[in-house]
């Protein structure tokens, strides 16, 4: 806890800025190290792991978590949290599918429509936080319940089947060379996320708001507007992730995404995002998302008892964050 204030004060010096960048790099290295270790272990332990088919599978399986986690990273950087992403993904996924099945809208329009539903949920989150002044935890906890309720209402709690075949492309399609479309989607969203975070006002302000909200306000950043925008982006990506998930199973599943928020937050945190705000990168989050997907994939390949898989993922979260904090503390000590 005391670290955050220390970080806030240090920020103003040039050395502080340098250390910030260094510590981001270090936490990415820690997560990347774990990723490589798991990768090497699985390559040795399972003869079927290191095949193009399997690696593409892992990529496809990561897509939903990774896409949503990139939005979550942006939120966490502002010292916020979005607990509603799983429910919002389900609502968007089901409504997007209903747009094509019941309204007969073209697939692309429906995918966009589903994403917009997510953005709308994000807008409500953002307004509740920035205008009504609710704590992000509470605002999005409410949305977790509201969106889940809405998805049951619109679908009458029934899965929606009957999507056009072309809809399968988003989650199941393959480009020349065997590269799955979901993997391309991850790359596109990641590059966009990277550009937003490092090259736009929104990105810089997000770091500023998360590092020190008061200082950001005093320096004239229109906090309400940017904070709202951050939740809209998170909601839109949750919506888009929901469409990918729907495409994977060619249907809208009202039960989708329960507990997904935990995987998504874990991906960001493993990748070095700090829940205290001001820290987090797209690359780190991607590493975190892949690490979780690899562990799940490996657990099935090695037929690990299902009960242990949850334990393993929890322990990895602990280790990643402990390692991260240890490195940060050493870095801070070294600079004093």
């Amino acid at each position, binding site marked *: 806890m005391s670290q955050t204030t220390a970080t806030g004060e240090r920020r103003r010096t040039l050395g502080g800025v340098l250390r910030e960048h260094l510590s981001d790099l270090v936490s990415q290295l820690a997560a990347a190290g774990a990723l490589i270790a798991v990768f090497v272990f699985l390559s040795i332990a399972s003869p079927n792991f290191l095949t193009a088919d*399997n690696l593409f599978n892992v990529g496809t*399986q990561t897509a939903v978590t990774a896409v949503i986690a990139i939005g979550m990273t942006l939120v966490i950087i502002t010292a916020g949290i979005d607990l509603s992403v799983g429910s919002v993904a389900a609502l968007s996924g089901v409504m997007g599918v209903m747009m094509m099945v019941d309204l007969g809208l073209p697939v692309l329009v429906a995918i966009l429509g589903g994403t917009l539903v997510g953005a709308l949920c994000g807008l409500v989150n953002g307004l509740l936080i920035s205008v009504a002044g609710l704590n992000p935890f509470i605002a999005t906890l409410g949305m977790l319940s509201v969106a889940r309720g809405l998805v049951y209402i619109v679908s009458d*709690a029934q*899965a929606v089947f009957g999507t056009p075949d072309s809809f399968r492309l988003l989650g199941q399609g393959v480009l020349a060379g065997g590269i799955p479309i979901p993997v391309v989607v991850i790359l596109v969203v990641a590059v966009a996320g990277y550009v937003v975070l490092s090259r736009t006002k929104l990105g810089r302000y997000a770091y500023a708001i998360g590092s020190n909200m008061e200082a950001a306000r005093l320096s004239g950043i229109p906090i309400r507007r940017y904070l709202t925008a951050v939740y809209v982006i998170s909601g839109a990506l949750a919506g888009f992730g929901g469409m990918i998930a729907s495409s994977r199973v060619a249907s809208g599943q009202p039960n989708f995404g*329960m507990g997904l928020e935990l995987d998504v937050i874990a991906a960001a945190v493993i990748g070095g995002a700090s829940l205290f705000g001001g820290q987090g990168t797209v690359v780190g989050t991607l590493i975190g998302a892949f690490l979780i997907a690899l562990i799940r994939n490996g657990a*099935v390949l090695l037929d690990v008892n299902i009960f242990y898989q949850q334990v393993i993922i929890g322990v990895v979260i602990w280790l990643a964050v402990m390692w991260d904090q240890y490195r940060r503390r050493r870095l801070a000590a070294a600079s004093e």
Partner: protein
Amino acid sequence: MCWRRILVLLVAAVAALALAACAEVREQGGGQQGGGEGRQGPIELAVVPKAVGFDFWETVRQGAVCAARRAEGEVDVQWDGVAQETDVTGQVNLLQNFITQGVDGLVYAATDAKVLHDVTQQALDQGITVVNIDSGTDPQPENVPVFATDNVAAAERATEYLVEQLGEDGGKVAFIPFQPGTATNDTRTEGFKNVLKENPQVKLVAEQSSESNYNRALQVTEDILTAHPDLDAIYAANEPGVLGAAEAVRSAGKAGEIIIVGWDTAPDELKAVREGVVSALIAQNPFRMGYDGVNAAVKMIRTGEQVEGGDTGAILVTRENIDDPEVQRVLNPSCKNPPVEGQ
């Protein structure tokens, strides 16, 4: 979840206040039950599935509503359920809410046999008639009938079919359970493994849970196919598992090569049977569970007599028999021609 609990508590509190006045009357009404004296007038029943959001439970609802409509006198069915079959606490709260409301009868499927026994007892103590459908409690009180599928027997039949299809040489089979530790999951596992034990030529090479989630089932099956490229068969213990397995096998280009046998009969599962991707489905009779459950509750409340529970039956749906009228009556039940006995 937390939110939902608060909401339930609030509603329960309001209901408790509103009903405080008639609480005495209710107790009197319930007290008559053991004496064999029936009760006339409108009956209010709460029907609670394990979870909402699956075809199976929707069909239970149809059966329950149909029975209520056909019953003599006024029978009102309130249908409500939690979002996830794993949300045991949520179901406990929901049922307690209905008990506080003072419904006449509780027809429900227990998400956890041991935990829910206390709730059944609580309802019985207040003179509320209780009937279990699909899943009972442990222990099962003598005056609470259960209308459910004999899961072990049905799983054995399906696995025997799978073994038959594999032929004398046997092969490698993967198993997709959905929620280890629950009665339904474990009885379906038991029947499956009983038959495997008698047939050592069929080898179980992977066992991975779908967590009752279509997307998860898809991923798990993809990974199993990666680990065992020579897999011969899959046994999936419920709807999301079958759908996920079918989708994974289809996109691996192995449709028809891998035998899939599983539970439940969602529209896309049946489509997969017609396409030959899925070899056989175990069709339970959820309509009859809801129907028999509500009928039993009404009879017990009206006459005060005890009703015996029973096996609601299961059939094996294959490409060959899918259009038989007997099979269709179970698959597409209607209140005009309900798939129940004595019609």
